[in-house]
């Protein structure tokens, strides 16, 4: 729990159980890992096109759906040309 505190006011990448990848500034969280992400965008990965960035704004993501929260190394991230990245999207684990 307190581990997440280290990420507050840093850019994080969140993977949700429906397979979305959301990047934004972590502004807060609570006991159930509900999370506030400001200025966030979704990265839509695809095998035949570059990564599409979709601007989302201010989000509250409910903890139930969060699979992973990781700090994003912004320098490293800036050095990656996302439009050249080809990757399969992550599976949605909520439906069969």
């Amino acid at each position: 729990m307190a581990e997440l505190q280290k990420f507050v006011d840093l850019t994080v990448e969140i993977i949700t159980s429906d397979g979305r990848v959301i990047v934004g500034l972590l502004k807060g969280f609570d006991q159930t890992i509900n999370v506030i992400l400001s200025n966030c965008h979704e990265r839509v990965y695809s095998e035949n096109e570059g990564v599409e960035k979709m601007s989302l704004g201010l989000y509250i993501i409910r903890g139930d759906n969060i699979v992973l929260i990781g700090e994003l190394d912004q320098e490293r991230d800036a050095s990656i040309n996302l439009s050249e990245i080809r990757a399969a999207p992550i599976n949605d684990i909520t439906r069969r």
Partner: protein
Amino acid sequence: MLPLSLLNTAQGHPMLVELKNGETFNGHLVNCDNWMNLTLREVIQTSPEGNRFWRLPECYIRGNTIKYLRVPDEIIEMVKEDAFRQRQASSGGSRGRGARGNTGRGREGNARGRSGGGGRGGKF
């Protein structure tokens, strides 16, 4: 900052709610509680496929069915103002009461004296 305080501050503002089943609800937040249960007004419901729409005058959403909420950007600044105002009202409240207590007591005393006097005069 707590997600639920942000949600509280967002009361009266438009928002988009996506449920775990993919349905979305667009409307104005009327009320919310500590379980993230919500009531929305003037709602547009969208099917998970995004091809069907319904208009609802009002709806209640159980918190645990929510995937995420999209709220207007400016709400995050309003949370800080809300928190500041609340801090002033609560901690400043006891101090304020104390401070006002002195002057207030004087006024209260006067008032009591006057009304009490009048009352007594009336009674006896």
